[in-house]
């Protein structure tokens, strides 16, 4: 049985493309035959994914906040482009109906939704200054955070659904930006809850109002492919 530090080094060399073809093949074979190594690889991947998600979120916030404070360009365009930083890390197409691939693809959709939500949240923070009262802003921010993190999903979905219905009511005055974000995070909540049909239904509604939004189009495409 090898020392874990040797496994760590092998995993890192593989991930950085530093192994020869033969070494890679041997390593992949060993993973298939050695449950301990396989588990260590899984834990390694979780660490890397966690680091990428957290650091990506932090850095997007730095860039977005800087751009917002300088008022260089409208944030609505910026967050769409900036979420491509996160999207470039994760997007992959469904290849087969095998459960493992579907599981992986579900993960990709969730990760895309998580990363794209960073920009939506920043946009909301910027656009809601002075337009909605503080109590409502805090309530919405909490809801959006829960949606993004997949926390208290039942309550979050209930509340966002209620608010989403209100956004459709022409007699209720909800700012356009909030309406968009309420819809987006309701879709994200459904994604995190595993209800992809419902998520797609919401996304299709939003897409009809924002047909040029690249993130909406991207996640719509992923959901359509997944549900085929």
């Amino acid at each position: 049985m090898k020392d874990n530090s040797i496994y760590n080094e092998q995993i890192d060399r593989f991930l950085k493309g530093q192994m020869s073809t033969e070494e890679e093949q041997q390593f992949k074979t060993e993973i298939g035959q050695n449950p301990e190594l396989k588990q260590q690889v899984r834990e390694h991947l979780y660490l890397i994914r966690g680091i990428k998600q957290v650091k990506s979120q932090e850095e997007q916030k730095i860039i977005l906040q800087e751009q917002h404070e300088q008022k260089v360009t409208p944030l609505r365009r910026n967050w769409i482009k900036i979420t491509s930083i996160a999207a470039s890390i994760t997007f992959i197409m469904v290849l087969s109906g095998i459960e493992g691939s579907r599981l992986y693809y579900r993960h990709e959709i969730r990760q895309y939704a998580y990363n794209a939500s960073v920009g939506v949240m920043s946009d909301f923070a910027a656009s809601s200054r002075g337009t909605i009262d503080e109590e409502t802003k805090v309530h919405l921010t909490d809801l959006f955070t829960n949606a993004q993190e997949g926390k208290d999903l039942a309550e979050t979905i209930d509340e966002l659904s209620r608010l989403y219905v209100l956004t459709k009511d022409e007699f209720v005055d909800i700012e356009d930006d909030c309406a968009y974000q309420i819809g987006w995070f309701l879709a994200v909540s459904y994604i995190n809850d595993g209800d992809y049909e419902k998520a797609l239904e919401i996304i299709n509604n939003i897409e009809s109002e924002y047909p040029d939004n690249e993130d909406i189009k991207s996640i719509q495409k992923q959901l359509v492919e997944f549900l085929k």
Partner: protein
Amino acid sequence: MKLNSIHSITSSELNAFFEENRQRTLCYLESRFPVLQEDDIEDIFQDSSITLFLKIQNNELLDLTSSLYTFFLSICINIARNKVNRSHPTYLLSDNITDSDFEPIRNDKLEELENLVGYEIAEEQTDQEYLNWIEQQVREGVRQMKPPCNQILWSFYWDGLSHRTIADMFGMKSEDVSKTQANRCKHKFSDFIKKVIASYER
């Protein structure tokens, strides 16, 4: 435009970014460009900070494919090279002096491994709620990492720096020290993951 004047107009997040990364950047530049004086190194850091600030303002970071720090370090390296070439024209600066500093994780290799081992943390665990919860806990674990673990692991996996570079940046004796410390940190994280899995209540 001097860095002091930038502080008054940049966001607190960007200022914090510069402060957090200042020391390791200065150490790195000193080790790679020994012909430069301390004042030169400080100037390079300031000029690079201004350059980064202006690039963000001009929306030039919208398609960033590296970490923000790696991008910033590249700016520092370019400015340092120009400074050496201008102020020490007879000094032989190797073209590939910084090549071995960057060893990013390849996304294709990451995907390959993910496909190979599956996404679930354990063979039988495919429940979505469970996976969501695990991911949340992992993110929280990463956020709560303390030095030197966060310094080493974030530099290695997010900034894509080699252990040699990390050792130079954080004043470690050798790259082996960085590797050993990284293994300890990963072992700690592995213990953390096991506790998280054990604590999950359905």
